[in-house]
């Protein structure tokens, strides 16, 4: 079905059309209230449309999106698992959504209990000692983690200067370290795709505050020397930060807290099934070992028996990073998820995520180059090396996948794999959907040899054809104008 391009709402706006009306003002109107304040003119070109026009606009726009609810979405590092509908439903319960954040704690015990319970469960799942839910997403979690480390080291006398980050890391890692005032030093990966302990040892010294490790790393490979790495860092007084974005491989299998990790962030919007929303809201809770607890953001939730309260009495706290307590409704969904799965279900989820990923890896390893041969867990990173011979890049492959009704893998990283196709199916996919992806990838490999043009000009059967990103950046048009 060739869609008609959906016009911008501004283009269908016309004077006097209305999509909503408020009840009449029921207090005596005082026109002079605006006498000495700066009042705006009529907002030129602000939309004026009817409710049906708005509903059609967004219904049609929604259909221009691919999404988990429509099919497999093997975007590596993103853990695009199914978002259970019951979680959405419980997060819409009236007393949750209408709760003001400044409510007297007597009036919001249920909410505090939820925050506290999820904290307990994440502690058990990760082996850490305490969690904060203030970080709004993974990246803010990293920043908070870095701040905690800095506060702790400062407390010990010297915040230090450097943070070590493997070359395979996600872009937010160096960026977060930087915003925390650290200089970033890159650590090499070794041939098996894990942190090169030699390089780590070489770079580790008393000027280094921390190392940021992702585990399993962004190649999907378990950092099996993480304990050893942690020892190297600890021995020099540094701390170990773990990017827990890939926790979906490890639930019930092993615990970062048992492996020398001092600080971790999780992505509730990955591992714990809360929806991505087309780019948020997420939630990036940060967990710490005992020594770092005093520095956690305030307020924290405390309880005496079954009474919960908010405690701000943490003199060493790094302070607030969010206006209130982070993304409460996301916390509700994550808790619903963990309670639904239970201990066996969480472990089964990780096992199945790894099974699905290895099934894809095995099914495609002839057709697609795998730079690192080490065993992988929940994801694996192919590359376009074989297809490059036919002048076909990972982007062409991705765009062609769109024609074949599956979402492409991640391509923007890890930077150590050229032409990366980072593939993470998650545990919720059916075999039929995995096969759909595998068959599409195989077809593309054949096409690369036999009909490369069909790849270069892909996608053919999408809402729009291949878009010109260079043009967008060169002459930016970032808002509508009449």
């Amino acid at each position, binding site marked *: 079905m060739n869609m008609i391009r959906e016009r911008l709402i501004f283009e269908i706006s016309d004077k006097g059309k209305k999509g909503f009306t408020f009840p009449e003002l029921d207090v005596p109107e005082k026109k002079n209230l605006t006498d000495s304040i700066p009042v705006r003119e009529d*907002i030129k070109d602000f939309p004026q449309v009817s409710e049906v026009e708005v509903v059609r606009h967004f219904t049609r726009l929604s259909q221009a999106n691919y999404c988990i609810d429509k099919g497999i979405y093997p975007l590596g590092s993103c853990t695009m698992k199914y978002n259970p509908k019951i979680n959405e439903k419980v997060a819409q319960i009236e007393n949750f959504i209408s*709760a003001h954040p400044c409510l007297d704690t007597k009036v919001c015990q249920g909410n505090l209990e939820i925050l506290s319970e999820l904290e307990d469960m994440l502690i058990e799942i990760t082996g850490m000692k305490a969690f904060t839910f203030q970080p709004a997403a993974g990246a803010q979690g990293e920043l908070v983690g870095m701040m905690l480390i800095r506060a702790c080291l400062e407390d010990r006398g010297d915040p230090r200067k450097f943070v070590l980050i493997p070359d395979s890391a996600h872009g937010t890692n160096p960026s977060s370290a930087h915003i925390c005032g650290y200089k970033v030093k890159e650590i090499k990966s070794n041939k098996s795709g894990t942190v090169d302990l030699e390089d780590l040892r070489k770079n580790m010294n008393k000027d280094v505050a921390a190392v940021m490790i992702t585990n399993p790393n962004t190649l999907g490979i378990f950092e099996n020397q993480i304990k050893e790495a942690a020892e190297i860092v600890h021995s020099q007084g540094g701390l170990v930060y773990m990017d827990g974005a890939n926790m979906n491989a490890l639930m019930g299998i092993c615990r970062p807290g048992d492996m020398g990790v001092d600080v971790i962030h999780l992505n509730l919007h990955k591992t714990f099934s809360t929806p991505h929303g087309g780019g948020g809201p997420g939630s990036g809770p940060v967990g710490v070992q005992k020594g770092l607890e005093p520095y956690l953001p305030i307020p924290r939730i405390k309880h005496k028996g079954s009474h919960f309260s908010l405690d701000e009495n943490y003199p060493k706290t790094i302070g607030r990073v969010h206006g209130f307590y982070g993304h409460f*409704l996301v916390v509700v969904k994550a808790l619903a998820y963990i309670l639904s799965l239970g201990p066996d279900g969480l472990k089964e989820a990780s096992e199945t995520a790894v099974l699905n990923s290895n099934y894809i890896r095995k099914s495609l390893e002839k057709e697609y180059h795998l730079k690192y041969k080490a065993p992988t867990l929940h994801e694996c990173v192919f590359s376009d090396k074989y297809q490059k011979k036919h002048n076909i890049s990972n982007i062409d492959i991705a765009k062609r996948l769109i024609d074949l009704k599956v979402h492409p893998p991640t391509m923007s990283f890890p930077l150590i794999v050229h032409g990366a196709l980072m593939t993470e199916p998650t545990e919720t996919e059916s075999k039929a959907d995995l096969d759909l992806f595998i068959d599409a990838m195989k077809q593309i490999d054949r096409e690369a040899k036999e009909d490369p043009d069909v790849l270069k000009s892909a996608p053919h059967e999408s809402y729009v054809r291949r878009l010109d990103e260079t043009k967008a950046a060169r002459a930016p048009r970032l808002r*509508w104008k009449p």
Partner: protein
Amino acid sequence: MSYISLSQKDKKEMLKVIGASSPQELFDSIPDDKKLKRKLKIPKAKTEPEIMEYFNQKAHKNKNNEYISFQGAGAYQHFIPAAVDYLSSRGEFVSPYTPYQAEVSQGTLQLIFEFQTLICQLSGMEISNASLYDGASGTAEAVLMASRINRKSKILVPKTLHPHYREVIKTYTKNLGLDIQEIKYDDSGQISMTELKKHLDKETSAVLCQSPNYFGVIENLDKISSLAHESKALSIAVVTEASSLGLLKPPGEQGADIVTGEAQSFGIPLSFGGPYLGFMACQKEFLRQFPGRISGETKDVNGNQGFVLTLSTREQHIRRERATSNICTNQALCALRATIFLELLGKNGLRQWSWQNLQKANYAYDLLKGIKGVKSPFSGKVYNEFIIQTEKDWADIEKGLMKKKIIPGISLEKYYPELKKCGLVCVTEVSQKQDLDRFAEQFKEILSA
């Protein structure tokens, strides 16, 4: 309940393809001594009816449904049209990732483009991003952005800025060598111009100004921007109650260089504080230092209009530690809610909305000020929040009113110990006259008790 879609047969077939005898075998790369040798100690799996009951019980422990409330202070109760909930809960909006693959994400990309346009129209700016986490962290980002732009480090933060925002700024800047100085307010409840002038100098990177401010008072942003500009400092406008943008002169027309704040008021429920919707807009010249995702218009190979995430060389996944921000996942679904909300209200609805907030709050303000023993510490004009000072401790007033199932607002004592016996009261369009009259009556009763 588990959400696995494989049958036993599927699993067997897949293991065969892989050449493994069990899924457990696939974890052999994890050294055995690092493995957890016991079951996780969390409650056993619950089914959907049990989950529903569990959370209903939790919700039942909250008692907020029993009260009418006049709390604001950065989180506002407004009516949300049914179409906002319906449309924003469609799986096609809820379940995709950030729109990296533009061709299958035109829904999200176009709505962000519309959101950016609406934010520009409201703020009087040229550039907006796709969203930031919330108003507080957005304000911190604005501070960082300013100091990147002019490479200066002194930031003037008024005490009329939301206390939580001030705290978040401190947390964010502490490790970056920025010098945060607080500016006092005057009798009107506005930033003291004398104080501001005292602190403002050539070292100043930026002056912040929240309007309406934490006291509900509308600031003279125009004047503040001029003063800032005279010292070659940037003017950062902060908006915590976005509904005011329908009535007040847009910050962009009052000299602001950057506008940031919280857009929770646009169709996002109170939700115990989150997720909310940080927004940021700026003048064109600052684009290269601007943080966050941006959707931009372009064309496809057939020359048809389309949208992509653009200018990503500013961002962490390209520029890594030199990015303008570390933000990655932001608040897309909340931005969708705001976009639907604003497009439904439209030009006239928006104006009607702001106007009713202004009128109702001032009606209540007058009623309360009319009570013996109540006065207003500030003379400034207010939008939909205001401070009142009474002869009793605010805690006592709150206690008394809560018995009458009214939550009167928020005490100022914690953040403004100098403002004794003061409370911050918020009134929006959802309050009916009869509620306001009852509120005032009960207030009076408690004061005279």
